C-alpha cells in the first residue's frame, strides 16, 4: 500500500489523504497519522472519545511503522460524506490534543507555582487556633448593607 502522509495528501481520488474501503465488516474510512508529529498518547486520547460514535481500529503502517493508521467505521449506517468528515474531525481532534499538550508544557511552571503556593499557605495554618476567620467586620444583627459600614459603595478612582 502506498504511503501518503496527511501533510502531503492531495485530491487524487483518495479524498485528500482519506482512504475508503469496503470489506466484510462494511465501509471504512482511514487516515495515516505521522507519529513524529503526533504522539501515541494524543492519538489514543482522540480515539478514546470517538469510540462512543464510531468503531475504531489502530494499526502500524509504513516501512519503519512510523505511521499509525486510524480506521473508522460507523456504528449506524451513514453516508460516505459523514464517514470521511469523521476522519477530518478526528484530525482536528489530534491538533486539539497537540495544542493542549504544548500549552500544558508552556504553563506547567506557573501551574506548579500556584499549587505550591496554595498548599504552602495551608501548611502555615495547621494550628487549629489560627484557623478562625476574622469576624471583626461581620455585620451585626441590626446592621444592613444599606449602612455600608465598610464604605464599599464609595466609588474608586474618582478622588
Amino acid at each position, binding site marked *: 500500500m502506498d504511503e501518503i502522509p496527511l501533510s502531503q495528501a492531495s485530491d487524487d481520488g483518495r479524498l485528500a489523504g482519506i482512504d475508503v474501503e469496503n470489506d466484510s*465488516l462494511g465501509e471504512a474510512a482511514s487516515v495515516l497519522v505521522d507519529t513524529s508529529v503526533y504522539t*501515541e498518547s494524543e492519538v*489514543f486520547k482522540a480515539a*478514546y472519545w470517538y469510540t462512543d460514535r464510531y*468503531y475504531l481500529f489502530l494499526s*502500524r503502517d509504513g516501512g519503519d511503522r512510523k505511521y499509525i493508521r486510524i480506521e473508522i467505521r460507523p456504528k449506524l449506517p451513514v453516508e460516505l460524506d459523514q464517514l470521511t468528515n469523521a476522519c477530518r474531525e478526528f484530525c482536528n481532534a489530534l491538533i486539539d490534543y497537540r495544542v493542549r499538550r504544548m500549552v500544558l508544557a508552556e504553563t506547567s511552571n506557573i501551574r506548579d507555582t500556584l499549587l505550591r503556593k496554595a498548599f504552602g499557605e495551608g501548611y502555615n495554618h495547621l494550628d487549629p487556633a489560627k484557623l478562625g476567620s476574622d469576624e471583626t467586620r461581620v455585620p451585626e444583627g441590626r446592621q444592613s448593607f444599606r449602612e455600608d459600614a465598610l464604605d464599599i459603595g464609595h466609588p474608586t478612582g474618582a478622588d
Partner: protein
Amino acid sequence: MQITRTIDQRLYPGEAISEARHEYRNFCTLSISPLGSDQVEVVITVKPKHKARGREVVLEFLNYLLDRAAEIHLEAE
C-alpha cells in the same frame, strides 16, 4: 463470521488483548499467533449463537480493546 487482524502490541498491549478476550468470551473466540516483533495475528471467530450480529460483535470487541489500550497507555504517562 471470522475476521483476521494484525495487531501491533506497542499499540494494543498484551494485557488489553487478554482482558478483551476474557470480557467477550461469550461472544467470540480468539486465536492468536505471533507475527514477528511486536505484532500478532488475531483471528476473531464469532460464536454461532451471535452469528446474526457478527459485525457488531467483532467491532465492539475491537472498540473495547482500544478503550483498554488507551487506558493502559494513559495510566502509564
